[in-house]
């Protein structure tokens, strides 16, 4: 058990992210890549992800405003978004993306809209949680090892 209260808090937050399915194994991969050369690697990657994916979200939003739906285009955007989300291990967000693509393939506009709303919620939640997580991480200092979620 971590002596340092900040570290302990960090570990609790981290565990919760995994337990609640917000993050998957890929996030651990990122943590394992973090080293002395890139001590803030994970945070950098996550920041990059949210910056780039925000653009994609906007594109999809705009595409959904144009009727009739261009499912091919929507699918394309979501494919990109899904790929991006997989990079940080955004599990829930990824699941919504997959669902969205299914609806695109079957031409279900209603399903697309619903799924997209859900996706945006998950996306926003994840963002908040990770921001908080990194805030604590910065205060807690470097983590010794990446712990695998139980």
């Amino acid at each position, binding site marked *: 058990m971590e002596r340092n209260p900040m570290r302990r808090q960090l570990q609790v937050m981290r565990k919760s992210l995994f337990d609640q399915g917000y993050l998957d*194994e*890929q996030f651990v*991969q*990122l943590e*394992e*890549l973090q*080293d002395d050369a*890139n001590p803030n*690697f994970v945070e*950098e*990657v996550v920041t*990059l*992800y949210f910056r*780039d994916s925000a653009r994609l979200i906007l594109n999809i939003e705009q595409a959904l405003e144009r009727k009739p739906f261009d499912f091919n285009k929507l699918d*394309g955007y979501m*494919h*990109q978004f*899904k*790929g*991006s989300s*997989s*990079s*940080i*291990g955004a599990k829930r967000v990824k699941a919504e993306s997959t669902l969205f693509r299914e609806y695109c393939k079957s031409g279900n506009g209603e399903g697309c809209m619903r799924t997209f709303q859900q996706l945006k919620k998950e996306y926003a939640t994840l963002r908040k949680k990770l921001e908080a997580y990194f805030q604590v991480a910065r205060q807690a200092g470097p983590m010794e090892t990446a712990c695998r979620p139980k």
Partner: protein
Amino acid sequence: MVVETGFSSPRTDAFPAGLRVLVVDDDSTWLKILEKMLKKCFYEVTTCCLAREALNLLRERKNGYDIVISDVNMPDMDGFKLLEHVGLEMDLPVIMMSVDGETRRVMKGVQHGACDYLLKPIRMKELRNIWQHVFRKKIHEVRDIESLEGIESIHITRSGSELFDDGHFLGGEDTTSGRKRKDGDNKHDDKDLGDPSSTKKARVVWTVDLHQKFVKAVNQIGFDKVGPKKILDLMNVPWLTRENVASHLQKYRLYLSRLQKERDIKNSFIGIKHSDPSSKDSNSGAGLHNSMNVIQDNVSNGSFSFSVNNSCVLNVDLKGHEGDVKGISSGPMAESKGTFSIDIPDPPRAKSLQISFDHSLGSVDSVVNLASFSSTDTVQYSWNEIPEIQFKQEYEPLQLENRTNQLPQPGLQHNLLTKYLQPTVSVSPGPSVTEKTATSSGFEVKPMCDKYRNNHIKLSSPTEAVGESHTLNDQVFEPICTTTSSMKSQDIIPNHLTESELSPRNLYDGVGVENLQLCWLQGDCYAMDSGLQGFDCTEYNNPTMIPEMPVHLYDAPRFDHEHLFDPMEYYVIDQGLFA
């Protein structure tokens, strides 16, 4: 031994460390992650987010990368298209990535030539092993080249039989076939040439005739503009598919690059720096000619240098190898000296020339080689041949001429040799350039050259003696050097011949052939610039060099290049990986 490519030197760590990876992905998050992962594997990483940019990088730095990893979905170009381009132009292993793992897509990737298809999210352990694709390709290259050589040698046999003495011919043939047998490859083995994309169709047998058509088509189109579809259309073989052609083209490239590498290796052995791309350009066809060209500026003629040498060398050699020289008369030689205006040898002549070379090659110290040259006209022809492509009559014959007198000097010998080599080479190219049949003669010669190539290494020292030789592309000298060193002055000549034989080949590689560049795109090779230029003369092995066909790659006598590099092949391969 690692040949410096000039772009990034291979790490001194053990393979696979230092593997040069180019990552292409429009997703900057993934780009960052992959870069970090690859760096952790001790690979050298270059990232870019646009396919076009990636292609530019690859084209700029030929042999600057060992493997490419690319995403399937990119905004400016379809990943599969990029895959095709890389495969055709550079023949590097390409790994595709995607978050989409649909069987359909994966199959498409494989069909387009991807050596692997990774699903995102990618784990580091998956990236750790990507070196296997580079390694596998190298090994297959060797096999492909051999099988191609098998085809080539068959071809040569056919065309050469009429001109060549059976003895000669067989000699040359044996080396090639022996090699093939050794490796268990059948000349007609189409395993490697089979259509990779169709697992169920019958394998395509790339017969000599078919290959000739292929080479012809490639030459017509222009090596740098070549594409499977265009080749397919030109070949006009109804049952042949685009995939068949694409895979064969890859092999062809491999072959060329293999020869180039071998030449490079030789060069490195000899201690001569691998000719730089500029020299390659000049050599365009004659790797040999580089060495020989020492005098000549490789750039333009690579092969031409031979011509110069030829005249000189011939003269010189003749004297030395009277015994073996069949009919080499100093007379003609002398004439050749002054006449660098090599006329384009008739193919038949070239053939005969080749034959003689074969002979000479057979006996390193036999002047026989010279004998081959004995027909000065033949030698000249070779020059001519090359000139077509790039022969510049200018080469430095003058230098050589001076040397000829000094033949005894090792240095000179080299020069001479180189010169000789060139001529010989040119001969082959000559005919080949003009006619496919010529190539056969080229083959003959080649095997010998290969043998000599090994010798080259020894000679390297003499070359140094020769100031001029330095001018030649390093590569050029290498072959010559090696052979000469082992031989006495007199012997040297034969070596030259071999060399020259080799050179022509090289010459052709770069020469005329449309832009043989492809051969070198290989990561290891010092990729020649597109077009003839790239061909390092040093690379005798370059199939392209073989004058026979501009396409050379296969037409050129493969002879022994493979053989010579046998020991080195793998060595080179390993080293070359990170070249």
